[in-house]
């Protein structure tokens, strides 16, 4: 396959320097590339702060939302309290009923895909999968997924990059109105009843939690699912290997997550003039923690550009590192493991008919991140 193995756009730079000076949309950013350096910086919240509404994601998001995201965009000591409020929901993916529902849903989607002559993976498989799975996490009726499916890959921007964040904020406002009037057992109701330092959460805070629940776990999951399907289309022998020994599914899933690293990087704001591994940074400017570079650091991962489904140890940081590590990781891992299990059980081979890659074109690099479109035939067993 021409598009494999994945090409690491940070390789040459990383060999020379652990960090580089670059820019995103005209903002200067010091991008940290080395594995050790990214981990270290992710834990240094005094020097590299998350207390920066709209600016933790890169590019900045003032144009697509009006609220600070919780607990992403706060620092200690309040971070722990904000995070604790939602932690119980993010632990749900370890419950046996949850695992069983995920298995049933992905099994049904895949059975449907196998029956079709061909299927467009992003729109007809990954987006419905992601949206339905999210109803389990947020404990919402599965029918609500129909609304979310219509949002497309990105909740904030349409394909041409134009903001559509207002639509989602209006939807979330309605959800919270309903939750306040008739609280149920769902995520939004729980938030309306939560208390922070002895007071209820404000509407801005409520919206900030909802915002990341919808945005953070969307293109990341969609991109991981399409990348996995495309990988096995190109490597049928690997799918057979996994099928013969499904106890490798967990380890293989971690390697596919490392290989995809769907969130390329994330920002931190420097409150005072400082320096990031050789790059000077001015007060108010950003650094970036580049997970995608760290996960291909050859001083830690042997042959990083080759997928080795039995890679172990595999200390990837696709889900971040330190106090802000991904709350949705248990859910995301369950999705990946379940998808692998169902592919082993149900798909004999996958053939790509057409594909368009997503390419992140930035000043310092071009990175392929999954697919804008991926049409395949899935041959059932």
């Amino acid at each position: 396959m021409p598009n494999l193995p994945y090409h690491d756009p940070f390789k040459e730079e990383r060999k020379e320097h652990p960090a580089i000076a670059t820019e995103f949309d005209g903002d200067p950013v010091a991008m940290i590339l080395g594995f050790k350096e990214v981990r270290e910086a992710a834990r240094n919240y005094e020097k590299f702060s998350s207390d920066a509404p709209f600016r933790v994601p890169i590019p900045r998001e003032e144009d697509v939302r009006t609220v600070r995201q919780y607990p992403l965009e706060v620092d200690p000591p309040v971070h722990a309290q904000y995070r604790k409020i939602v932690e119980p929901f993010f632990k749900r993916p370890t419950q046996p009923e949850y695992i069983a529902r995920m298995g049933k849903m992905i099994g049904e989607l895949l059975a449907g895909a196998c029956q079709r002559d061909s299927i467009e993976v992003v729109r007809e498989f990954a987006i419905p999968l992601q949206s339905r799975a999210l109803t389990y996490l947020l404990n919402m009726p599965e029918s609500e997924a129909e609304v979310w499916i219509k949002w497309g890959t990105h909740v904030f921007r349409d394909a041409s990059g134009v903001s559509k964040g207002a639509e989602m904020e209006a939807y979330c406002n309605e959800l919270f109105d309903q939750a306040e009037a008739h609280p149920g057992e769902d995520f939004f109701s729980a938030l309306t009843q939560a208390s922070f330092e002895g007071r209820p959460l404000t509407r801005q805070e409520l919206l900030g939690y909802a915002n990341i629940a919808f945005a953070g776990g969307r293109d990341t999951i969609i991109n991981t699912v399409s990348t996995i399907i495309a990988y096995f289309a190109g490597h049928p022998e690997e799918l057979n290997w996994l099928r013969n020994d499904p106890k490798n599914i967990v380890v293989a899933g971690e390697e596919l997550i490392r290989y995809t690293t769907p969130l390329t990087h994330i920002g931190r704001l420097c409150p005072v003039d400082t320096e990031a591994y050789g790059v000077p940074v001015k007060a108010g400017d950003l650094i970036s923690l580049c997970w995608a570079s760290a996960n291909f650091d050859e001083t830690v991962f042997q042959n990083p550009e080759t997928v080795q489904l039995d890679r172990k140890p595999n200390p990837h940081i696709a889900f971040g590192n330190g106090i802000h590590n991904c709350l949705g990781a248990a859910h995301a891992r369950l999705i990946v493991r379940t998808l692998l299990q169902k592919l082993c059980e149900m798909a004999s081979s996958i053939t790509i008919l057409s594909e368009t890659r997503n390419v992140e074109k930035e000043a310092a690099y071009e990175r392929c991140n999954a697919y804008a479109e991926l049409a395949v035939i899935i041959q059932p067993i």
Partner: protein
Amino acid sequence: MSQVTFISPQGEKIVVKNAMGNLMEIATEHDVEGIEGNCGGVCSCGTCHVWVEPEWLERVGQASEIERGILNFEDNSNERSRLCCQIEMTDDLDGIVVKVAN
């Protein structure tokens, strides 16, 4: 048969007899608080951090370079820290005691 004792952050002792597999698997099977094992034991998630009781350190052996690199940046890390997914239960470790670090 090998026995392992986990001491939870609250000081509760969980004793597992006939323990098999690595310590993370054993802990999650017995719902030991603070050991989650999210990554399934590939050294990625750090949710299986324990302190090995001093008298067992030598028999458990050294962490690999990769594991050590991870532990260096974990919270509550000290010279007795290990990611317990990297400790395979053997007859030699019969009676081992570890404390949950998270």
